[in-house]
């Protein structure tokens, strides 16, 4: 009746479930000093960017460096980038949950948190890029109004509003419902005001068998709902581009291509977040090399899909015989924006190939660097799609040129600041690893011998 987990056979755990609460929740007490340094940097970047955004709201969008024929540039690049980052969390929580991939239990909490903060970062950009965000926020939603006019449900941007807000809501619920038992754990370990706060946040979770049973069922359904959602969100985002006629945008491969890219960037981001967090909060004994390797394998898989998508996109551009399409792709590869293109190709497709070697895969420093590069590459992928797709399109008379300026750089940095401020706050106040879920994949506390000792005896 009680099977030893398949994983616990292959994964060599040094810890037991009794160590989980004590060692993971150490972050609530005393983080590494590097935490404060990181937080200060992130907060500074965020505050500076808030100042810039305030200024651009007052002065006008003209302060940005982009101009016709580019009406989107770094703003929407960041939007797509962050939405992409936001894919890994729910993918890991939902799809891998359904696939019963156990390694997910070590990383899903932080990945989900990352998702939520990334989607928040993403949602900021459509707002600020309008310049008059109050109008946009008010009108882009289907609210009753005295004008008797509603939103255009045929616009990909309205789909975006629906997709992003649904995704954010579902991810948030998914993350929070997973947090509830862990918050109860923290509540049980604390006293006074803190106990009250965590008590309220945990809804009074008690961990009875009935609760666990409904919880598990609901969690499963949420995962089942979130799975198509994960795949749909970036498809919808890709339609922002694919639904227009622009060369380089108007292509059917975009949805799968974007989803794969999103998962690639998300997994790479998860990895590059886990490494410092693992160090900072001394979680090496819980996030084991085997788990990291599994994450890398997924990244490698999506990288090859992305590689394929790039190749197909090029092939189709050539094969279609469409002058405009092919001229654009040619320009991407050898034109004035080729730097971005080749950065993208090398970072997303070529460097990850090193992971075919198990040694490289298991070398944390090398993998960390490659993951960072993949993130850079994925940012440039979006930059490349948007900028090179717009800068030189149909009529040569309207062509232009674009390089990012000060506002682009500061606000992009600020979005990273926003992300890390939230992520670090999360690391400080919430369990970084899902306590209840990691207990599930650890050796079960069995009386018959092999399961290690139980605390207190």
């Amino acid at each position, binding site marked *: 009746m009680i099977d030893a987990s398949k994983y616990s056979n292959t994964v060599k755990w040094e810890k037991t479930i009794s160590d989980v609460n004590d060692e993971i929740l150490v972050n609530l007490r005393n983080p590494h000093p590097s935490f404060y340094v990181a937080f200060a940097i992130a907060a500074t970047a965020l505050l500076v960017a808030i100042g810039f955004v305030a200024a651009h709201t007052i002065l006008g969008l003209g302060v940005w460096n982009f101009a016709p024929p580019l009406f989107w540039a770094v703003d929407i690049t960041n939007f797509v980038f962050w939405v992409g980052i936001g894919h890994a969390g729910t993918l890991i929580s939902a799809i891998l949950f359904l696939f019963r991939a156990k390694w997910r239990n070590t990383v899903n909490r932080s990945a989900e948190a990352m998702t939520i903060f990334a989607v928040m970062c993403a949602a900021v950009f459509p707002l600020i890029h309008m310049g008059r965000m109050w109008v946009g926020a008010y009108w882009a939603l289907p609210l009753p109004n*005295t004008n008797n006019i509603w939103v255009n449900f045929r616009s990909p941007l309205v789909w975006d509003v629906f997709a992003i807000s649904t995704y954010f809501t579902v991810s948030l619920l998914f993350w929070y419902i997973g947090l509830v038992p862990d918050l109860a754990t923290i509540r049980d370990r604390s006293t006074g005001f803190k106990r009250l706060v965590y008590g309220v946040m945990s809804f009074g979770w008690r961990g009875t068998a009935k609760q666990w049973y409904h919880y598990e069922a609901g969690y499963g359904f949420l995962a089942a709902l979130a799975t198509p959602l994960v795949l749909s969100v970036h498809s919808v985002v890709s339609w922002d581009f694919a639904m227009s006629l622009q060369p380089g945008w108007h292509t059917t491969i975009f949805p799968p291509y974007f989803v794969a890219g999103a998962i690639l960037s998300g997994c790479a981001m998860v990895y590059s977040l886990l490494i410092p967090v693992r160090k900072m909060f001394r979680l090496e004994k819980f996030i084991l090399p085997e788990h990291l390797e599994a994450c890398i394998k997924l990244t490698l898989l999506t990288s090859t899909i992305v590689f394929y998508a790039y190749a197909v996109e090029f092939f189709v551009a050539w094969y279609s015989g469409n002058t405009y399409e092919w001229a654009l792709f040619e320009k991407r590869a050898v034109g004035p924006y080729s730097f971005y293109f080749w950065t993208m190709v090398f970072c997303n497709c070529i460097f990850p190939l090193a992971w075919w070697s198990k040694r490289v895969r298991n070398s944390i420093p090398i993998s960390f660097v490659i993951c960072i590069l993949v993130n850079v590459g994925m940012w440039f992928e979006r930059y490349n799609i948007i900028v090179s797709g717009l800068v030189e399109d149909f009529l040569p008379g309207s062509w232009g040129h674009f390089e990012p300026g000060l506002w682009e750089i500061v606000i992009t940095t600020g979005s990273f600041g926003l992300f890390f401020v939230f992520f670090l706050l999360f690391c400080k106040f919430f369990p970084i690893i899902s306590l209840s879920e990691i207990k599930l994949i650890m050796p079960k506390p069995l009386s018959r011998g092999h399961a290690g000792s139980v605390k207190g005896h």
Partner: protein
Amino acid sequence: MIRKLVTLFVLLVAVGLTAGSNEARAWWMWTPGDTVDDVGYKPTQPIPFSHSLHAGKREIPCEYCHSAARRAASAGIPPMNTCMGCHKVVATDKEPIKWLTEKYNKNEPVEWVKVHDLPEYARFSHKPHVKAGVECQSCHGNVQNMAVVEQVAPLQMGWCIGCHKEKGASIDCITCHY
């Protein structure tokens, strides 16, 4: 403790709402969509000109004074010489008429307060509406019964659209916004 916190929170919210309510209303006023209508707006005019006397009791047709309504976008506020056309001889002993005559002789216009006011981006023309046989009263209310003119219709887009849909008139955006 919880109770104190809750009380504090409620207090803060209440104070914030009170202080910000005017501002918030003002903000809504500027929001696209014109959420606050002006029904009942009844400003005090420089002289107590009574439509109920002129248009009601004396049955002067609207277009006698607002003569541009059928020819132009704007119905026009009658120039003072229109007033003086009658009031050179009529009711010259009344205070407001004396005031009016004095102003007229000084070549100074009367500064009426606009009652019906559309935003600048909504382009309304009286001409086609008059041509289509829309009664003045259907938008301006029974002015002939009003001693002081007040706004009776919200003059908001939804209201316009409602009538346009009903009458089969154009509901294209560019009809009014260009």
